[in-house]
């Protein structure tokens, strides 16, 4: 009986004690958690020692792990790497295009500089402002020989402004938008240039240079320019043809071409000089627009 009673009492005491212990333990833990929450500082030498021991190990594991992960990233995230690859290839193509464009601009700048130094010097041109332009398009039809330049009225370009290249005359502006200008080449049948032929004697012979380009005749052997003279005019093969400055469009002394061939007319009264242009129109990339209309 005593034993039972002692046992029962002892058990009751123990259960109560355990309950009280657990209660205070929980309370203590909650208080401890409150006191050592985020942003609270408290002396933690044991934690400091563990951190000091762990940090070199952590550093090694993390750096090795990062390296392995980096080296095997293509395996773990194949889709992502593939997408990145596509994006990078697109960027490379874009940058290559930009690089080529910049190189072209540098080359164009160098050619402008060469043009400025002048294959020819015309004092008549010096009094006009000039603007460099790049050919951005050629007439897609077979009806006209025109070029489109990347300069327009915003750059001070106007209709009838002459266009020149490093070796000579190219044509004149026939239409202008804010950012572009269309140039009719002197080789086109619609364009005429008041010109003169300066022979070896130095005396000029005046005339009109006419483009021979018409639909379907571009590839004929007669050349792209021709000029009519009287039979008595002294014009020889190899003579230089220059603008005369009389037409009101082109300034004087801009080279047009060289006489390639001279033929007598059937009537015997006139002769035709076939002129080879100095400018290679097919490979032309940059030109100067001479602002004769609004840019003196």
């Amino acid at each position, binding site marked *: 009986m005593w034993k039972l009673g002692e046992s029962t009492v002892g058990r009751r005491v123990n259960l109560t004690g355990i309950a009280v212990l657990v209660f205070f333990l929980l309370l*203590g833990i909650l208080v*401890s*958690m409150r006191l050592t*929450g985020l942003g609270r500082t408290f002396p933690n030498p044991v934690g400091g020692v563990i*951190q000091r021991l762990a940090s070199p190990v952590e550093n090694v*594991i*993390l750096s090795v*792990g990062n390296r392995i992960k980096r080296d095997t990233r293509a395996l773990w995230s194949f889709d992502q790497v593939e997408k990145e690859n596509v994006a990078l290839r697109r960027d490379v193509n874009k940058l290559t295009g930009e690089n080529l464009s910049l190189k072209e601009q540098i080359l164009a700048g160098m050619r402008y500089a060469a043009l400025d130094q002048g294959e020819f010097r015309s004092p008549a041109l010096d009094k006009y402002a000039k603007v460099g332009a790049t050919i951005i398009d050629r007439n897609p039809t077979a009806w006209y020989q025109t070029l489109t330049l990347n300069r327009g009225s915003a750059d001070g370009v106007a209709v009838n402004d002459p266009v020149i290249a490093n070796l000579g005359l190219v044509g004149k502006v026939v239409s202008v938008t804010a950012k572009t200008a269309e140039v009719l080449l002197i080789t086109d049948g619609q364009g005429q240039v008041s010109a003169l032929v300066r022979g070896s004697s130095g005396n000029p012979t005046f005339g009109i240079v006419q483009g021979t380009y018409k639909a379907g005749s571009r590839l004929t052997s007669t050349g792209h320019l021709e000029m009519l003279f009287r039979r008595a005019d002294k014009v020889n093969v190899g003579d230089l043809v220059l603008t005369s400055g009389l037409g009101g469009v082109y300034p004087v002394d801009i080279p047009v071409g060289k006489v390639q061939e001279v033929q007598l007319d059937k009537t015997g009264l006139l002769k035709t000089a076939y002129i080879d242009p100095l400018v290679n129109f097919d490979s032309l990339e940059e030109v100067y627009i001479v602002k004769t209309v609004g840019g003196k």
Partner: protein
Amino acid sequence: MRRFLILAFLLFLTLVLPGTLFHLLAWSGIKPDLTMLLVIYIAQHSRPASALAWGLGAGLVEDLYLGHFVGMYSLTLTVVALLTLYLNSRWYRENFILTVLLVFLVTAVGQLLIGFLGFGAGLSWSAGDIFRVVLGVSVYNAVLVLVTYPWIHRSFMQGWLRYQAKYER
């Protein structure tokens, strides 16, 4: 002593690895709770007093290592050890599938307790976050059982982690 040192070293690894190796193997930000897994293993293979002492000790070390909310892991890992002892006395620990289930359940309870204590400490975790973490960590720990349990069980039974009574030493 050797058993104690090895377990202490394993405890050290369980503190270091989640922030390093398992940070790299994180699964949507979820990492395993290796200390909890180790306490479960110890509780499965130790006597009650030893298991509770390891739970409390490992929890306290983790609290001090983390440097905040001291008591959170002490209480949690003690409860984890207690729950493991309870389940282990009823479930056959040689059964691999039951061990996986045990680890999943005990980890879930432990993580829930951490979430509950976090509320008590004034942390503002959403119910969705708690659910995600509890489920994720429990699954991760259960998956790790497949990799770790065979060799650690063998070590506890026959190897360096085997408990030796005083008369055997």
